[in-house]
């Protein structure tokens, strides 16, 4: 019985850290503990979290998508461009299609040719980035105020805006996909031991491509929501997002080598990140040092993950 409790405690380290941290911060920082502040935190991490949910599937399958930042920019720009040229419907459909296509390309090229998805998506980052800047000739796209499109982001339930709800919805959906479907199981198997997965007869190319497609889809959703909120889009919209997403995953406990982790981990990681950044903001730490903190967090988390892997192998 004692062993089991210890085991449960160990696997829930992250949420314990989160709870403890929140408790400490609530006591020490004046405005931290208020409901409004928590909602603020959720709002600030919502877009990154939506992307992180998609990225989680990719990482569990053994890959990594560094092009999410550029893809985000592309989808945001496409959304506003379509809004100005045509209508709301296309402003939603076209970015989604773009996200899916990017996912197909990323997934297929890295799986079919057995290439490191890191380098493939690195290349795609350039391709998509260049394309995005090309469409708008480097300039920010200002959207024509359109009743329907803007209203999307203004929806809220219980004072919580729609994009937070979308995040929660996708998180639940993806977790079900991961844990309760054959697809999710195949993904975990591929991430755990790609060679064994092949011998067992799993179509690794197809499954991994689908994971990238889902990631691209999530990116497009997040981009559409942000464009709806700002009614403008800049080709640099998503710059740097890939790092925030990876940070959230890693500190949440998703292993970058694949096979280990779930959406729940990612959520904890994103919230943890949001909490830390929020605390830094409330105590008036210069914005730039948040980036430094993020960098340190990534290194810390990856070190711990590598140590844990090593222990298993020994």
């Amino acid at each position: 019985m004692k062993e089991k409790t210890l085991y449960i405690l160990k696997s829930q380290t992250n949420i314990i850290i989160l709870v403890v941290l929140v408790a400490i911060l609530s006591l020490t920082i004046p405005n931290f503990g208020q409901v409004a502040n928590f909602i603020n935190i959720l709002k600030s991490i919502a877009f990154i979290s939506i992307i992180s949910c998609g990225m989680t599937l990719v990482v569990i399958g053994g890959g990594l998508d560094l092009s999410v930042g550029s893809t985000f920019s592309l989808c945001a720009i496409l959304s506003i461009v379509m809004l100005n040229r045509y209508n709301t419907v296309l402003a939603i459909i076209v970015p989604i299609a773009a996200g899916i296509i990017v996912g197909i390309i990323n997934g297929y090229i890295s799986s079919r040719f057995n290439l490191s998805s890191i380098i493939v998506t690195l290349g795609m980052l350039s391709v998509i980035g260049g394309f995005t800047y090309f469409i708008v000739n480097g300039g920010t796209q200002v959207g024509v105020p359109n009743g329907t499109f803007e209203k999307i982001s203004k929806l809220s339930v219980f004072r919580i805006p729609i994009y937070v709800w979308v995040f929660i919805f996708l998180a639940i959906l993806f977790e079900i996909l991961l844990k309760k479907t054959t697809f999710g199981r195949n993904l975990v198997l591929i991430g755990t031991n790609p060679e064994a997965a092949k011998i067992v007869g799993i179509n690794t190319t197809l499954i991994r491509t689908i994971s990238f497609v889902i990631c691209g889809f999530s990116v497009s959703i997040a981009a559409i929501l942000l464009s709806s909120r700002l009614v403008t889009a800049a080709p640099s919209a998503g710059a740097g997002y890939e790092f925030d997403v990876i940070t959230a995953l890693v500190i949440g406990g998703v292993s970058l080598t694949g096979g280990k982790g779930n959406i729940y981990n990612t959520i904890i990681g994103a919230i943890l990140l949001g909490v830390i950044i929020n605390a830094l903001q409330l105590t008036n730490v210069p914005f730039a040092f948040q980036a430094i903190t993020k960098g340190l967090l990534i290194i810390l988390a990856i070190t711990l993950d590598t140590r844990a892997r090593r222990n298993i192998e020994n």
Partner: protein
Amino acid sequence: MNQNQSSLILKVKEVTKTFPGTIALDKVNFDLKKGEVHAIVGENGAGKSTLMKILSGVYTKDSGSLYLNGGKVDITGVNDSIDLGISMIYQELENILKITVAENIFIGRLPESRLKGFVNFRKLFKDTKNILEEFKIGINPREVLSNLSIANQQFIEIIKAVTTKNARIIIMDEPTSSLTKDETGKLFQIIEDLKGKGISIIYISHRLDEITGIADRVSVFRDGKNVGTLDKNEFSSEKIITMMIGHELKEIEKEYKLKEKVIFEVKDLNIKNHINDFSLKVHEGEILGIAGLMGSGKDELVKSLFGLWPAASKEIYFMGKRLSIKSPRDAVNLGIVYLPEERKIQSLFLDLSVSDNITPIWLFHIYKKFFLSSRREKRLSLDYIKKLSIKTPSPNQKSINLSGGNQQKVILSRLISVKPKLMILNDPTRGVDIGSKEEIHDLISQLADQGTSFIVLSSEIPEISKISDRVIVLSKGNICGEFISSDVTTKNILVCETKA
């Protein structure tokens, strides 16, 4: 006795080594004279690799003593072994294929030029040329290693052992498995040179014809013991094989049920450098064993049957229909499953539970639904845990925690769960304890009786002869013998295999 001992360079006295479940070496005695070639033969599992691993410092002995040049020594690690002048030829681990021959031979001790920090290439190539000439090997010192034949790469290995590591004892494990007859001749010439220099060689091989050509003495290992040493003038393949088998081994009487229906056929299988014009038929409910030494091509053969290794040409017929198997997926879809030889790397999902390891193929082949049912998965795994007597506290136990035998049973459950028509097993009882081994053999028999066909590879001849209805023996890419029913005996297989 004393006179002989003074020319002894190595003496192994009553060395024992046990692993959980097996006694690998049982008070083994062995000695090596200066400048001699001492061959060791024995079945897989007889203990020869274990002894070599102890000598090269990879394992430590449990008890017994080692003497070098008369003085007692302790070998606690690889470095000790090298310092003592013992060198084992490992092909893959120690060659750096992308740099030149010269740099490989002089690795870690490249000659320095007048300019500090710079390499004196002229001296490097000149010294290398001299060494190569000394060994009468005509290789260009500037050649990149990967452009050389496997044989030449091996010769470089040997040179490295002698020059870089100052070895006085060199251990060669199946050195001729990838060599042609000419290259083997060249190897023997090098060995003669080494002997002339006073270097002793432990030569492990199955090829009795070769051994009679090169060895001064032969020791035969069986079941962890050294059952006898023969001098050159006492050699005969007959005698050695008898010693290898031992008189205790009963050839088990089997009924050979006549199997008629051919379910699987391969014609004209060609794999470059490995298999030549191979053809094969498997009948329903038949257990076909494939035996062969390292380098015979049997691994590449089964891998290509399963779609893991591309073959230059092959015709495959399954249940009478001509088809192609280009990937494992194709094979599994047809009802062919494969058990890889390295389960930790190629089969097991170590982080995952026993249940998760049993269900993969079943999930997308029989279950086929989008949503998982943990109830059905659990039921399936409990079923097989019971059927195969898998020792695990629960189906949720992480598979990495199970013993080798139980892990193998998990993988077998995985394969059986889809009721395959043909099971290809590559070394199914490697690293498995004796109890589980028996159980696995029984399982294979039972399934065969029920109509499942098997292709079984093993390097343990007693195992192959025990369970197979029919055996094909491969040697260097060709079939050198085929035996049916009562002719399937260890002796017959061994005789075929040991012909060079």
